[in-house]
C-alpha cells in the first residue's frame, strides 16, 4: 500500500504570552479567508482534522488550528512543574488575539468549540473588530460544575482514563466509531491537570451570563451551532444565549454531541458549509 499525505502542515511558533516564552504548535491547510480554530478543553487542534481535509473548506479558506499551551504538541512554559495550571478569560483572550496577530491574520473567521465557543462569546463582545465572523460551537454563557472536578487530577485516578471516560457520553449516538474513539483518545492523551485547568475557565472564571446580551452582531456576525446530545452545553442553553443576542443565528444539530467537528466531521459539514457560504456572501 502506498503512503498518502494529508494536506496539513505543522510548525512550532515561539511567542511570548503572559510575559513568558512559549512554544506553540500550529497546523494549517488551504488558502483563502483565514479560519482560526479553537479546540475544546483538555484536547488539541487535531479536532479540526476534518475541516483541514475537506476541500470544500480548504478551497477558499486558510484553516489554522493551534494547540493551546499545555495541550497537544505545545509545551507548558518553563517552570510548569511547580505550578497549577488554570486558564482564565484574560489569558485565553490574550492568547487568541496574539497568536492571530503573530500569524499575520487579517480579521479571520473564528470558530471555537466548548471553551473555544465560550471565549468566542467573550471575543464577540470585547473584540468584534478583530474578526470578520465568529462561529461558536457548543457555546453557552455558563456551565455549573456537575461532578467533582478534583477527580480529573489526583494521583489515585488515572488522568487519561478518567478524562476520556468523563466526556465519552458527550459524543452523539450516531458518530462513527473511528471518529468517536479518535476524539476520546485526544482526551486520554492530555497532561495531568490540564483538562481540569481549562474547566476553571469553563465553569468558574469564564461566566459571561451577565454580559452576553451586549454582543453587537452588527459589528461582527455571530453563528451558534450546538449538538442535540450535548448535556454539558445543552441546546437549551445555546438557544437562550442566541435569543438574548439580536441578529445571532443558531442551529441545533440533530444527533450530534459536544465535539461536532471531531466526532462526526461529515455530519458537521452539512451544518458548517452553509454558515461559511453565508459569511463569504457578506
Amino acid at each position, binding site marked *: 500500500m502506498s503512503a498518502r499525505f494529508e494536506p496539513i502542515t505543522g510548525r512550532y511558533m515561539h511567542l511570548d504570552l503572559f510575559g513568558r516564552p512559549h512554544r506553540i504548535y500550529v497546523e494549517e491547510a488551504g488558502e483563502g479567508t483565514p479560519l482560526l480554530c479553537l479546540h475544546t478543553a483538555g484536547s488539541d487542534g487535531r479536532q479540526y482534522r476534518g475541516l483541514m481535509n475537506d476541500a470544500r473548506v480548504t478551497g477558499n479558506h486558510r484553516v489554522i488550528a493551534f494547540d493551546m499551551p499545555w495541550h497537544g504538541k505545545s509545551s507548558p512554559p518553563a517552570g510548569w512543574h511547580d505550578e497549577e495550571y488554570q486558564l482564565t478569560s484574560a489569558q485565553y483572550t490574550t492568547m487568541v488575539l496574539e497568536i492571530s496577530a503573530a500569524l499575520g491574520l487579517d480579521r479571520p473567521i473564528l470558530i471555537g468549540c466548548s471553551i473555544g465557543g465560550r471565549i468566542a462569546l467573550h471575543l464577540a463582545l470585547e473584540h468584534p473588530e478583530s474578526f470578520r465572523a465568529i462561529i461558536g460551537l457548543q457555546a453557552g454563557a455558563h456551565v455549573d460544575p*456537575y*461532578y*467533582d472536578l478534583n*477527580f480529573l487530577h489526583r494521583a*489515585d*485516578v*488515572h488522568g487519561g*482514563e*478518567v478524562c*476520556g*471516560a*468523563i466526556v*465519552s*457520553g*458527550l459524543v452523539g*449516538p450516531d458518530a462513527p466509531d473511528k471518529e468517536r474513539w479518535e476524539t476520546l483518545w485526544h482526551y486520554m492523551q492530555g497532561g495531568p491537570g490540564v483538562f481540569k485547568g481549562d474547566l476553571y475557565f469553563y465553569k468558574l472564571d469564564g461566566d459571561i451570563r451577565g454580559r452576553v446580551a451586549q454582543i453587537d452582531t452588527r459589528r461582527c456576525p455571530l453563528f451558534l451551532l450546538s449538538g*442535540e*446530545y*450535548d*448535556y*454539558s452545553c*445543552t*441546546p437549551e442553553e445555546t438557544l437562550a444565549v442566541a435569543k438574548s443576542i439580536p441578529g445571532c443565528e443558531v442551529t441545533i444539530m440533530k444527533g450530534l454531541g459536544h465535539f461536532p467537528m471531531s466526532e462526526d466531521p461529515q455530519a458537521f459539514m452539512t451544518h458548517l458549509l452553509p454558515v461559511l457560504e453565508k459569511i463569504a456572501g457578506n
Partner: protein
Amino acid sequence: MIETLQQRVNDDQGLVRRGRYLTTSFLLEVGATPWLISIFEGRIVSVTRGPFVMPSSSFALRASEQEWQKFWSRRPPPGSNDLLALIKRRTLKAEGNLQIFMSHLRYFKEALAKLREGAAA
C-alpha cells in the same frame, strides 16, 4: 432484567480485562429496589436483589425506575444517554467512595449500558 448483568458483563472479554484491577461491591438502586452487585477482578460474581438489612458496598448509584428505563432504552433521548448526563440533571445520585467509581468510570458506564435494549452481550 438486572440479573442478566452478570452474564452480559462477563461475556465481554474487553470489559473484563479493563476491570482486572477492580474488586468491589456497589449498590444499584432502581426506584425503591436495591441491587447489590459484587465484582472480582473485573468479573461480576453476584447480582443480588434487596431489600437488605445491612448491605456493605463501596458506593451507590440511585435513580428512579423511570430514569433507568430511559437510560436502558434502545436509543436513549438526549440527557438520558450517559450516567454523567443523569448526574448533570440531578436525577442520578452517586454516593459513597466515589474514587472507585471514578477511577473505573469507563468500566461502570459500559457495564451498566449492557442492560440497554439491543445491547450486545
